[in-house]
């Protein structure tokens, strides 16, 4: 069974592409028209230019994990604690995002294995309110890390976020130290914590758990940074360097260990987990 049929047989919902007869997709990078099924079969990577498209949690888990993984329940948190309202109510934005997503919020985790190596894998989903980190994301990350601690296995996080969830104000900012409590506990327990930075990873997510891994991997071309490019440009009034804040740039500046193509990720993660296996209890 290839990964695609594995996904199809496992997905609890019909992907939008299938239901909407939308047979062709346009590569967001080179604008090539791609046959949707081929694009999917190529792991949502453009066969022409190599652009790595953004993918959801279900696709990611299916690509990375062995069959038979189990999705962890999403912890419930206090909803819209600030009763936030901009041009729209935050509670309405949440409803809208949930209607368009198979998941409750932007972080989904599963317990299973990667080519036989046990791991908890958490995936941040950019399509859910820009992957933004609020209390639900923080709670799901904490629960997933705790599960890795309980199972004494590795913790792998795929990050993707425009930053903090502003509609939760300071509570979203507090997710930074909160997540860091857990990365410290994994470290103290001697369990591997691997971060895969995907497009885009910015703001408070980058400035907390995304940059505290034992190993940092990135997908090609992923935008990774702390400050937004427009903010930087407004501050320094200078042209940004070529490739600024892209995965390759971060690799060059020593912030990620390696840039790995999506097709090689599963195997690379398995190899790393093999090397970093927690010492077996005698």
């Amino acid at each position, binding site marked *: 069974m290839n990964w695609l049929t594995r996904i199809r047989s496992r997905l609890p919902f019909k992907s939008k592409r299938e239901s909407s007869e939308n047979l062709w997709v346009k590569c967001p990078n080179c604008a090539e028209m791609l046959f949707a099924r081929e694009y999917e079969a190529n792991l949502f990577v453009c066969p022409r230019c190599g652009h790595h498209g953004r993918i959801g949690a279900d696709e990611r888990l299916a690509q990375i994990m062995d069959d038979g993984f189990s999705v962890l329940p999403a912890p419930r*948190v*206090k909803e819209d*604690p*600030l009763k*936030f*309202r*901009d*041009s729209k109510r935050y509670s309405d934005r949440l409803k809208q995002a949930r209607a368009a997503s198979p998941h409750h919020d932007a972080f989904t985790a599963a317990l299973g294995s990667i080519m036989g190596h046990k791991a908890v894998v958490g995936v941040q989903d950019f399509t859910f309110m820009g992957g933004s980190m609020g*209390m639900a994301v*923080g*709670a799901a990350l*904490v629960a997933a890390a705790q599960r890795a601690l309980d199972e004494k296995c590795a913790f792998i996080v795929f990050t993707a976020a425009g930053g*903090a969830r*502003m*509609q*939760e*104000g*300071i*509570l*979203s*900012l*507090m*997710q*930074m*130290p*909160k997540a*860091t*409590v857990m*990365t*410290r506990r994994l470290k103290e327990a001697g369990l591997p914590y691997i971060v895969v930075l995907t497009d885009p990873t910015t*703001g*408070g997510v*980058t*400035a*907390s*758990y*995304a*940059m*505290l891994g034992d190993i940092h991997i990135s997908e090609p071309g992923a935008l990774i*940074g*702390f*400050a*937004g490019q427009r*903010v*930087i440009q*407004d*501050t*320094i*009034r*200078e042209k*940004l*360097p070529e490739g*600024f*804040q892209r995965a390759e740039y971060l690799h060059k*500046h*020593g*912030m990620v260990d390696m840039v790995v193509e999506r097709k090689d990720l599963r195997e690379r993660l398995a190899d790393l987990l093999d090397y970093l296996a927690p010492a077996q209890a005698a």
Partner: protein
Amino acid sequence: MRAILLPERRWETSGSIMVSYLEFEKPVAALESRIAELRAAAEGDEVDIASELRRLESKSADLLASTYSALTPWQKTQVSRHPARPHFRDYVAHAFEDFIPLGGDRYFGEDEAILGGIARLNGRKLMLIGHEKGHDTETRLRHNFGMGKPEGYRKAVRLMELADRFGLPVVTLVDTSGAFPGVEAEERGQAEAIARSTEACLALGVPMVAAIVGEGGSGGAVALASAERVLMLEHAVYSVISPEGCASILWRTAEKAPDAAEAMKMTAQDLLRLKIIDRIVSEPVGGAHRDPATTAKALGIAIDEELAALSGVSAADLRRRREDRFLAIGAG
């Protein structure tokens, strides 16, 4: 050469007195300038204006007190950024003794946006770390308006680890609009430096007390504020993004900053209710900028009380308290 844009602010300067009035302080400014005029007119004059002066002064004081007892979140944001608001160096001068500054991250350089050193507070030895914004053009540039770069946060990590080894409690004074958004900061790993600084706070086996004294801006603030006790000055603000930034993203115009300030719940009073901070330290009537020395002394007393309460707590307990504090946020 890189041009740095000054944050856009409008200050009302009242003629001869070198005081910056905020927009909403205009009625107070008008009264105070009438008092000044009366005083000047009375110089060497025998006319009895004492009663009129007393009346005006009392009216002015009442107006100031009532204005400051009902500041909106946006007004507090302006107060927290007031150019005359006490900064790190003022606290060092008025609240702490024997400060010995320590410099450098040992990797790249010395970032004066984040200062640190050993000091005494009421005789108690401690490590003091905080943002410094500067108070005039020259010092603002030197301190980069309090916007730390990676080397600043790495210096903070170094000093925290030093404090930990020598059993010195850590006190931080947070006052930044945010970590510096610039090319070289990104290049040297701004995100990693902030993450490590937060991690260093959480790892401390010595007591840590953080005080938000002006602006607590985003990750650049939390990197120095992940403490077991977090204090906040009465008119300080603490938020995930500036009201202007939030407004321009969610309302698509920075002009909605007052609404964003309201919606984000960024005042000390709101944050105490949300249990994000533990204690509010009162400012003098009319804000800290009207009396930096008194403000600093009040903060010093509060920090000293917090440290006294934490002395004797084991390293493991301190870490657990810190961890529990953040794990509890948003739970249930």
